[in-house]
């Protein structure tokens, strides 16, 4: 793989520039290169990697912390109590690199990199919130996902993972008062003034309960009349501890949790997790299983985009489209339910393949749907996209440039709307996407309307992909013939005792995945979704990190809504297409 050369080349360049002390290389199971760097070199190393070196990585794609204190298989990595992993990415060369920084001590501290990548702001707050790692020089190092009154840092290994390990929850009046006070917005905490010259600003809480925020999201607006002077998003109301739960589930039993990360994406969430686990286990997925995965993923992409389409129209005030699109989505769910047995969260992919083969007559169902949708889309173009008021409400609103998009880690339709023809399915095909013909829709303005244009075009491309799946569904097994494929093929378990025992162990105990680290990313409906897994040779992940597209997208809200009006904010929120579960995890 090219990745190894990248890592060698980059490592020698870095060693040459910064001195060899403390630097070393590594590689994950799937080939993602890793560079270990000492913490004190970060402020020079990261700008070098971002823009100064020969091979630049302009995107801070993700940042994960790892509590290493209970880990048995360190795999020759440098000594550390905690590790920070900066996941950098280059769109041009489609290259990842993990820069890992070993940290010592129970509550280590490291210099903040917010001045290098503004998008690091929330990632660092999250790492502080979850691990207690202090970032020196961070402008607002306060809790992001957990309540402000929370004690402890949940992703540390000593923090209980189950409610039953903690005191029963009680809410006496004094505590309620305290929680309420903690939620009160104080402009001075954010460096926002209450008045300017002879204007008193109005501070408006949009959310956490608001019809326009699509879920539990709170944005505090600083208003001058109806014009937004500044905005402070407050997330975490939908936080369910998905990463912590991963550490107490088996590899197999965690699959249903992934369905619910982007709850509109269904099996699209299963895919990156499955791919990462399969990298760790060294499983090759058979062709038919790959094609089934692609087909279901694309059906879910259409379903997710339809929900966005309807709710976006509703955000700018059109009442009716949302009903049409939910009806269409229900038709997709009919197909999905016939194949998977469930609608929104079918929990369908398995380690090494999918849960079952396609049922008899599946192709007729899918074909019927493919014939049904395109005329409807044409009608929606007329009632939504070509409506003059709709255009007036969305064109030129909430625009960002391609440079800003890259700086802020935007992926998916939001990136393509800025004119970059970039889709992971094309640039680094996975699960057999190289076998399908489809285009990458783009737009040029990067505003709300352009994001809509891209998504509508993507629905049509997804239809093309599903058509090809129906036409060319390969024969063969739907699950890999591999000892770690879970659950083992049913017909074998009925015939030989070995497979039956494996089946029993893998369901009861969980498959034991060899120690290692892996990262897998897919082009989900809302952007790139990736899973970073660490196996310590157990039946479940030692650390599970989910990179979701909505998280960085929401962080951009203040940037793109300053100077806009309240109705524009709603158009912007609708055009971002986020799901709060995807943001908070």
């Amino acid at each position: 793989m090219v990745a190894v050369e990248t890592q060698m080349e980059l490592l020698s360049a870095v060693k040459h520039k910064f001195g060899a002390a403390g630097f070393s290389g590594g590689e994950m199971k799937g080939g993602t290169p890793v560079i270990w760097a000492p913490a004190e070199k970060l402020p020079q190393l990261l700008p070098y990697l971002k823009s100064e070196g020969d091979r630049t990585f302009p995107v801070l794609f993700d940042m994960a912390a790892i509590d290493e204190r209970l880990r048995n298989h360190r795999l020759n990595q440098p000594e550390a109590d905690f590790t920070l992993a900066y996941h950098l990415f280059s769109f041009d060369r489609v290259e990842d690199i993990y820069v890992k920084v070993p940290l010592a001590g129970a509550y280590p501290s490291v210099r903040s990199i917010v001045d290098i990548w503004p998008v690091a702001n929330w990632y660092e707050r999250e790492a502080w919130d979850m691990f207690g790692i202090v970032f020196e020089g961070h402008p607002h190092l306060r809790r992001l996902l957990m309540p402000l009154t929370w004690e402890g840092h949940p992703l540390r290994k000593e923090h209980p993972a189950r409610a039953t390990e903690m005191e029963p929850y009680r809410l006496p009046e004094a505590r309620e008062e305290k929680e309420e006070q903690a939620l009160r917005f104080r402009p001075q905490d954010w460096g926002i003034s209450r008045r300017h010259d002879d204007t008193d600003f109005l501070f408006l809480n949009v959310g956490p309960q608001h019809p326009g925020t699509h879920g539990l999201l709170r944005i505090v607006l600083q208003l001058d009349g109806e014009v937004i002077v500044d905005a402070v998003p407050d997330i975490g109301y939908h936080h369910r501890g998905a990463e912590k739960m991963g550490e107490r589930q088996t590899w197999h039993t965690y699959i249903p949790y992934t369905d619910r990360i982007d709850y509109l994406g269904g099996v699209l969430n299963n895919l990156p997790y499955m791919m990462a686990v399969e990298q760790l286990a060294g499983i090759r997925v058979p062709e038919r299983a790959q094609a089934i995965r692609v087909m279901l993923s694309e059906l879910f992409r259409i379903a997710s985009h339809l929900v966005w389409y309807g709710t976006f129209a509703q955000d700018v005030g059109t009442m009716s489209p949302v009903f049409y699109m939910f009806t269409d989505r229900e038709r997709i769910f009919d197909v999905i339910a016939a194949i998977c047995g469930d609608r929104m969260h079918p929990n369908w992919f398995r380690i090494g393949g999918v849960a079952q083969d396609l049922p008899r007559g599946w192709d007729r169902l899918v074909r019927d749907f493919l014939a049904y949708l395109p005329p409807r889309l044409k009608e929606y173009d007329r009632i939504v996209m070509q409506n003059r008021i709709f255009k007036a409400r969305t064109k030129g609103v909430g625009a960002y440039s391609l440079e800003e998009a890259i700086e802020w880690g935007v992926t998916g339709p939001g990136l393509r709307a800025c004119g970059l023809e970039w889709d992971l399915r094309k640039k680094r095909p996975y699960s057999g996407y190289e076998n399908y013909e489809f285009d990458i829709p783009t737009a040029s303005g990067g505003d709300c309307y352009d994001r809509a244009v891209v998504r509508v075009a993507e629905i049509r491309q997804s239809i093309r992909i599903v058509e090809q799946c129906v036409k060319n569904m390969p024969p063969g097994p739907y699950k890999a013939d591999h000892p770690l494929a879970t659950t083992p093929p049913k017909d074998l378990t009925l015939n030989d005792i070995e497979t039956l025992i494996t089946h029993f162990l893998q369901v009861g105990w969980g498959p034991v995945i060899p120690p290692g680290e892996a990262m897998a990313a897919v082009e989900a409906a809302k952007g790139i979704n990736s899973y970073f897994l660490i196996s310590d040779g157990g039946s479940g992940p030692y650390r599970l990190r989910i990179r979701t597209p909505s998280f960085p997208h929401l962080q951009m809200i203040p940037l793109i809504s300053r100077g806009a009006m309240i109705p524009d904010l709603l158009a912007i929120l609708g055009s971002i297409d986020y799901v709060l579960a995807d943001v908070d995890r």
Partner: protein
Amino acid sequence: MYSAIISLITVFGVIIAALSASAGLIWLERRLLALWQNRYGPNRVGPFGLLQVAADMIKILSKEDWVPPFADAAVFVVAPAAIIVPALLTFAVITYAPGIAVADLNIGLLFFLAMSSLTVYGVVLAGWASDSKYSLLGSMRAAAQMLSYEVYMSLSLMGVVMLAGSFDLRQIVEAQKGLWYVAPQFSGMLIFLTAGIAETRRLPFDLPEAEGELVAGYHAEYSGMKFALFFVEEYMGVTLISVLVSVLFFGGWLGPLLPPLAWLAVKTLFFICFFILLRATFPRPRYDQLMSFGWKVMLPLALANLVITGGIVLASR
């Protein structure tokens, strides 16, 4: 004595008709929206779900009638009344058919415009008295929107007044015996209808309420009977504008075969359905777009209509 009984019957007849039309609109709107949105709508209570109106009324009347502790209680209570009284009063001056009118006022049209101006007080006071940020923003929008659209509304009607030579609604209808005013006053009709939608704060001009943005805008803090008054007033506004469009531009009760009252009812129903269709179709423009549309498109159009009509009337003397 006899005439007094007749007037009493007319008075109560009009009030009951106006109120029950507004109540019936709850059902009609829900059914029609459902029809256009691939749904069923209320179809369980009574035949065709007609008793849904009664169920809705029972529900809304039995809800807790809450005055927020932070609100200006007196104004908060007065505001819903202030909004519904002008609406009801306007129904008094409309001539529904020959001889059927509460008050055959010779300045009926002016009276309507005056009452319609008063409505804005109810909306603004409601938002102000609620002492809630969303309500405040909603009532600010309402004040600007309703005041500006009233200007074009009055101007658009002057063409009709000039043609008929009267502010009396009965005479206006009778003047349309040869030709409905929609033909010579087509742009006037469009402006009046648009301004009428803005005055009644219906989609696409529901900015003061703007559910997705301001939650419920000026009446966000209202509940129970007080909320019901805003609700009914909206439907009364819709009915009123529909009646007026029919009377001013579509010949009112004039028409063959059917009795006069039935003709007016049919025409009114048509425009009510049109209001509902608009709601099912359009997105909501932004506040500044609404205002610039008003001042830059509607006002010049209304003025041009006024000047041209005036010129023609003068020339044909």
